């Protein structure tokens, strides 16, 4: 399974898109935790053309939750 969001995470976190799942989180993915994740928010905002509030970013603790949050803002994947 591959879609725009997974591709984006794979690119930013520098991992293989195939290894990402909906429940991928910083707790189970060391790459999300390190230097790479620094550009995560900017990349999402740029790619999907949205502005994310702190609250929304805090909600995105897994890829699945990031998808939910973005969907709520009208993004389709």
């Amino acid at each position, binding site marked *: 399974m591959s879609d725009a969001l997974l591709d984006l995470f794979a690119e930013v976190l520098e991992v293989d898109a195939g290894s990402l799942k909906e429940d991928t989180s*910083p*707790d189970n993915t060391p790459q999300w*935790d390190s230097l790479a994740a620094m550009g*995560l928010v*900017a990349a999402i905002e740029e790619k999907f053309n949205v502005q994310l509030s*702190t*609250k929304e970013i805090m909600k995105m*603790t897994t890829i699945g939750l990031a998808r939910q949050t973005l969907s709520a803002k009208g993004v389709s994947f």
Partner: protein
Amino acid sequence: MKFSLEYSSTAFFLDLLALSLLLLPIYLVASGTRTRQVTLTLSGLYLLLFIAPRLALLSLFFWLLVFAMQRLIANLENKAQEKPDISSLVLFVFIAAVLGTLTPMLWWKTQEWEFVKLINLSGNSALSLFSRTLWEIDLARNIIMPVGLSFATFRAVDLLVKTYIGKFRAMSLREVFYYGFFPPVLVVGPIIEYEEIKEGASGKLPAPKSDDFLAGALRTAWGFFKVLFLASLLQPSAQILDTFNTQSVSTIWIYLFVYTWFFYINFSGYSDIAIGIARLYGFKLKENFNNPFFARNIIEFWSSWHMSLYRFARRNVFVPLGGYRENRHLYALAGTMMTIALWHALSASMVTFGIYHTIGLILHRQFTKWKDRNNISLDHPAAQLACLLFTYLFVMLSFPLIVLPLGTALEFYGSMFGM
């Protein structure tokens, strides 16, 4: 009887195990979520009575306030969905609630004796309103330290934050107390999240299967072995903290080395017991340690040492401070490290500890960037080993700051380097 500012967590876990002989059958038979939650809550409260009834009463009061604040935030948050113009009011209420939750802990950490006096005297007096017997028994209990307060505070803050960002609806008193008094994590953590103990996909709390029970029992036994045997064997290394002035440089280094292991084995042993006992009931709590002394860099160390605290700080400090944005990243990193450091104690030495590790993390980032730019690989086993030893050394050197006041810690460093 001596009042104690320290509390033996071993006694608590032995009590919990003993009580589990009675509790587990009840838990298994009563399959309803409510009954199970209430059973665990009451047993947590009952165990607190043996530390001191006043502590049980104060904890009830604390979690009652958390319940009220959680409900308020959840309801306001709901309204803000329809009327976005009140969102700044919600933010204000949320921040006030978090500060209120943090107040007892901060008070304790800044004015220890004053706070201890206040809660013990007022807690004891308040008890007399409820039960003469409990009040009298309270007089005979000698623990004056607010056992578990730091852990409870962060559990509560986590709940409020998640409510504010819309992850939790308004919760019932039963649910909040269940989270507040979940027995295995009451005295030495880990700082669990509500998600770790909530109903599974089936809508029910977990029931232990045979292999959960076996794994839980083995894990608990392993924890006790670490705490009662391994750690107590290494415990004499703590002498160095009092006597370093008169020791040779090599003795100080050897003792400090052993002391770091004592500290780790002891602390992680308690986590093993907590996680093991929770497993007896079928709960799979998240890990709290993952071989931190074999980390190959400082970020790996921090994501494998007291992981529940680290995860808390990442969720509730690093991310909101803008850790995922390039321009705010370092700022968020420093905030995270300071939170972790100051949670232990609000002291000059813990501030130094926080700064030391922040610098370590920043240097590691810079080094990683430089390494990547120049295509340098550290994959060779020898390089990996060097990284491991270097990381360990870096961490070990920060330990005196955890356990000594700043002035003494500086003298300790002087003695370590023969000055």
